């Protein structure tokens, strides 16, 4: 998501599930799509009926590989080399969509002469801080403050020329040496993919955790995004960069800011440096001097003010900065790894876990489980008794030694309550309660509402700084007292998320009355006259009645362009635009680049756009298409990322080979937890742990397994944790199919059944043979189907921008279990 935001302006799947059927080439990399998103297979199958080609790159031949038309082996952690090579192929052979690149990306922009790159490092690097001075990568500005450009793309410091220089180091032989990909297949893939640079051909890119869960995860996505921009595939039907989210509602959860660095709607959460609302707005509101840049984030003040009004109502006004002082200011690293390191050091007292099972799902399970023991209290809210909730009596531990007070609150499942679920395609679909909750289980909404009531009660008689709690504007229809029989009204919540007017107001010549729902975020104000719990969802519930709930619509008619938009089935953000960046799908006159699958088109006589909701109503060429970027262009060169404006290959923290590209072995900008807190963070030596290890999922189980390992029919299908390893490795280790084995890393070891298979083949890396094995990570010590957790193997190390743990590439060894 950080990467997509850096490149395009928004962190979300650019297209949507059904749109996959429109593609000519689907690249599945860093994803096992048919395994983990089976419903997507339906749409891919439809694309294939039209002659589309599905390409799959994976260290292992998976169920997706079986479904695909071309499969290529790719060593875990080498996506950047692989795709940088594809970019190089496109650039060298001039297989790019020239007009698109020139007009819609920052290819022509000129970069400061302070920018350079050498031996794996960009200019501005501070090796002690392990960070870059990004001002060295700034644009050259003209007199009016607008970035200088060379429309001929020849200037040596223009992004295009810098790109050519940067990517020409990724020739085919180098790529195959690093990735272990077979040369003939790799070249076939380069050729097939580059063919979609033609305006009437389009490719879609599907990725998931195989891409993100690396120390260079953000840059992995950047390389995909750059390639897709060169192809001119962003904003088109059947195109895009499609992040396949890992949970049915994780898109909804990130939209609502269940991320440590955000507020709802992907607004930044304030830091200690933001002493006032003005400071905060100065830090976060991008400016532009270019009249053709819509710079939609320029509306920051309206969105944050409306959010604060939603939280604090009448208490928030211009005199008190709209209660900005009440919002917690970040002063540290609150990412998952950091929280657990802090917990391990005994510095976190309590932990709330809503539908989360870190004892199984978090990296470095041994350290994280030990960390939990230091808590004073834990509240686990879940539909099953998770492994985490019983960490205190897990195998090998004496409950008498653990002081943590643990509460398990019974949550009900999504079919036992009403509300919305937002899928990867940004579609928020309203759902109804099908059955009464089982036993005493109850909705998360009720639980949170009750928590608020209790906490408010406690704070009304003391506590440190009670104001932010006591002044919350909070009434969702469940009464003053906690009452198990009074469910808060989810419609009141949804309507507040959409937002409403707090006073009579005229906006854009329209009269609105106090209490009236805001029709869309174009009407939100920065003067306190509107509230909105999430500006992105403004338009989801634009009227007072249930019939006005756009998320509940179920009309099956497609739009006039018949590309599967289904505009009146549910609702998506923003403002029901199904394919974002769609202004890039037309030329400067508003004519579709791909008329067969047109997304929007300009109707000259009616003077309006047809098809999908356009990315802004302005007529053609009045605004640049990437409206969320301050300069309106998609960023081939992204100067705001921590590890560089261009993707560069580095090895994972634990790697069996040296980096063939430079002397920088690992990502120079990652936080080295093993140096900060060595305990429990040992790094494996390739001499002792020569095998690449990875973790992944199966269709039959779900995440940390609480929901599926307790279902007998699913436990029947996959009853035990297993490791997949190749024939050659198995022979070397004298392991037969079905044997029990021990897999070990520097951090821990686990037992599993061995599944010996041809689907893992050794990699030849510059002559050296390296093996890879993989373990499914769904298992834990609790539940009907039990087994060791793969995450005892993985390290506490994360991406340079997002801190997402490197679950996907580490070093291990495997031996037959001694009985």
């Amino acid at each position, binding site marked *: 998501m950080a990467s997509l935001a850096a490149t395009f302006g928004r962190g979300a799947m650019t297209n949507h599930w059904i749109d996959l059927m429109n593609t000519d080439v689907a690249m599945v990399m860093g994803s096992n799509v*048919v*395994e983990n998103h*089976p*419903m997507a*297979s*339906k749409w891919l*199958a439809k694309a294939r*009926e039209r*002659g589309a080609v599905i390409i799959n790159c994976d260290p292992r*031949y998976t*169920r*997706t*590989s*079986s*479904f695909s*038309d071309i*499969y290529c082996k790719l060593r875990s952690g080498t996506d950047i080399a692989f795709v940088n090579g594809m970019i190089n192929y496109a650039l060298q052979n001039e297989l790019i969509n020239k007009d698109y690149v020139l007009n819609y990306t920052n290819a022509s922009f000129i970069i400061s002469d302070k920018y350079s790159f050498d031996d794996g490092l960009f200019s501005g690097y501070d090796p002690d801080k392990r960070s870059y001075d990004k001002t060295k990568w700034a644009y050259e500005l003209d007199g009016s403050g607008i970035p200088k450009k060379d429309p001929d793309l020849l200037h040596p410091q223009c992004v295009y020329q810098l790109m050519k220089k940067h990517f020409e180091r990724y020739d085919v032989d180098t790529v195959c040496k690093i990735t272990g990909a077979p040369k003939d297949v790799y070249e076939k893939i380069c050729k097939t993919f580059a063919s979609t640079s033609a305006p009437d051909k389009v490719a879609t890119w599907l990725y998931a955790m195989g891409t993100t869960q690396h120390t260079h995860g953000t840059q992995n996505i950047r390389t995909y995004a750059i390639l897709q921009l060169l192809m001119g595939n962003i904003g088109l039907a059947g195109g895009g960069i499609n992040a396949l989210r890992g949970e049915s509602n994780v898109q909804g959860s990130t939209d609502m800011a269940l991320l440590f660095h955000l507020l709802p709607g992907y607004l930044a959460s304030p830091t200690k440096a933001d002493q006032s609302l003005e400071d905060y707005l100065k830090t976060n509101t991008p400016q532009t001097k270019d009249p053709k840049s819509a710079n939609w984030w320029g509306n920051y003040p309206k969105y944050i003010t409306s959010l604060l009004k939603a939280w604090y109502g009448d208490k928030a006004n211009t005199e008190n900065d709209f209660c900005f002082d009440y919002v917690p200011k970040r002063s540290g690293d609150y990412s998952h790894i950091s929280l657990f390191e802090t917990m391990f050091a005994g510095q976190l007292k309590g932990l709330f876990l809503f539908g989360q099972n870190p004892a199984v799902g978090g990296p470095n399970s041994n350290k994280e489980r030990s960390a939990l023991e230091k808590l004073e209290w834990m509240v686990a809210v879940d539909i099953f008794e998770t492994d985490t909730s019983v960490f205190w009596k897990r195998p090998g531990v004496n409950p008498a030694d653990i002081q943590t007070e643990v509460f398990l609150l019974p949550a009900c499942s999504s079919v036992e309550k009403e509300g919305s679920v937002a899928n990867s395609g940004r579609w928020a679909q309203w759902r109804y309660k099908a059955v009464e909750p089982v036993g005493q289980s109850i909705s998360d909404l009720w639980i949170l509402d009750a928590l608020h009531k209790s906490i408010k009660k406690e704070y009304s008689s003391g506590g440190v700084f009670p104001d932010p709690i006591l002044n919350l504007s909070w009434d969702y229809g469940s009464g003053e007292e906690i009452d198990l029989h009074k469910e808060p009204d989810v419609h009141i919540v949804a309507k507040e998320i959409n937002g409403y007017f707090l006073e009579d107001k005229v906006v854009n010549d329209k009269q609105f009355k106090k209490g009236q729902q805001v029709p869309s975020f174009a009407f939100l104000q920065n003067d306190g006259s509107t509230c909105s719990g999430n500006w992105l969802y403004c338009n989801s519930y634009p009227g007072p009645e249930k019939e006005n709930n756009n998320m509940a619509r179920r009309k099956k008619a497609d739009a006039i362009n018949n590309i599967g938009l289904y505009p009146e089935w549910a609702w998506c953000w923003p403002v029901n635009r199904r394919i974002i960046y769609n202004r890039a799908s037309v030329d400067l006159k508003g004519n579709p680049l791909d008329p067969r699958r047109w997304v929007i088109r300009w109707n000259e006589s009616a003077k309006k756009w047809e098809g999908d909701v356009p990315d802004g109503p302005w007529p053609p060429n009045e605004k640049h298409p990437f409206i969320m970027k301050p300069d309106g262009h998609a960023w081939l060169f992204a100067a705001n990322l921590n590890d560089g404006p261009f993707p560069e290959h580095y090895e994972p923290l634990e790697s069996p080979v040296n980096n063939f590209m430079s002397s920088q072995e690992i990502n120079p900008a990652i936080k080295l937890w093993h140096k900060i807190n060595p305990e429990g963070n040992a790094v494996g030596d390739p001499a002792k742990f020569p095998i690449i290890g990875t973790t992944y999922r*199966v*269709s*039959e189980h779900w995440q940390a397994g609480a929901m599926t390992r307790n279902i*007998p*029919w*699913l*436990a*029947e*299908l*996959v*009853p*035990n944790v*297993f490791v997949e390893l190749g024939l050659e490795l198995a022979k070397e280790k004298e392991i037969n*199919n*079905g044997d029990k084995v021990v897999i070990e890393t520097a951090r821990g070891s686990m037992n599993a*059944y061995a*599944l*010996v*298979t*041809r*689907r893992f083949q050794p990699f030849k890396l510059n002559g050296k043979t390296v093996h890879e094995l993989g373990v499914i990570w769904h298992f834990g010590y609790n539940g009907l189907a039990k087994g060791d957790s793969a995450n005892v193997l993985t390290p506490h190390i994360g991406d340079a921008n997002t801190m997402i743990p490197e679950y996907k590439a580490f070093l291990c060894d495997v031996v037959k279990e001694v009985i």
Partner: protein
Amino acid sequence: MVEKAILLDMEKCIACRACQVACKQWNELPAEETTFFAAAGGYQNPAELSPSTFTLIKFNEMEKEGKLWWLFRVHSCMQCVDPACVKACPVEPVKAMTYVKETGATYVNRELCIGCGSCREYCPFTIPVIDTEAEKSTKCNFCFDRLENGMEPACAKACPTDCLVFGDREQILEMAHKAVERLSAKGRHPVIYGEKELGSGTKKIYVLPEPLEYYPDLPKNPKVSEDIGLLHELLNPPSSILTGLGLVFGGVSWVANRKKIIIEESKSEKEG
């Protein structure tokens, strides 16, 4: 109603086992206790069809002509158009193995079934499994009860990729032929299985993207044993009473013995 069928367009199968679970859910079948996987080369569970498992996915991992293949197929009752199991069923006056004229669905009527095992004996695919405790035959019932109510079988409904498609057999055969065209056009070597097998074919129509040698446990030329007619004669004697009586008594005791043998065979299979 018209004779129904299910298309199994196996290129689209992702071996997710939604069909397996949907079948259990609809038929209220329990999960079996399993360990690891039942066969090499994939994630198959359980090992065989049983009174608790009416359908399962088989995985075949192989290297052929320098290429790696991982092919999946559904293993379940083929719902033959002219079912041998129905012919074989000795129960009188109404057969336990029931054929529904309207849809062609074949299912076991548990109230009538005596668990003799003749259906399994004569099934060219050896599908029915005798529940030795309940003394009943068990197999896929084509969701005959769903069909009666205008719904499609649970497996077809659950399949996320439209690999399994339910419809009229004629329409399904057309779709199968179209699928063959589609697969041939992209260089695959498709085969339809179930159109003409056993003469009149089956109601589960496979489109296999590669020939039968890639699916080694699918019988190439399934046949119904010719003595199925003799069995019938034995159990349903001709008008001649003289030979008839003797044969009938012989036949009944033969059946009773067969039942005992089948039950013992099943028991030893389970324990062995």
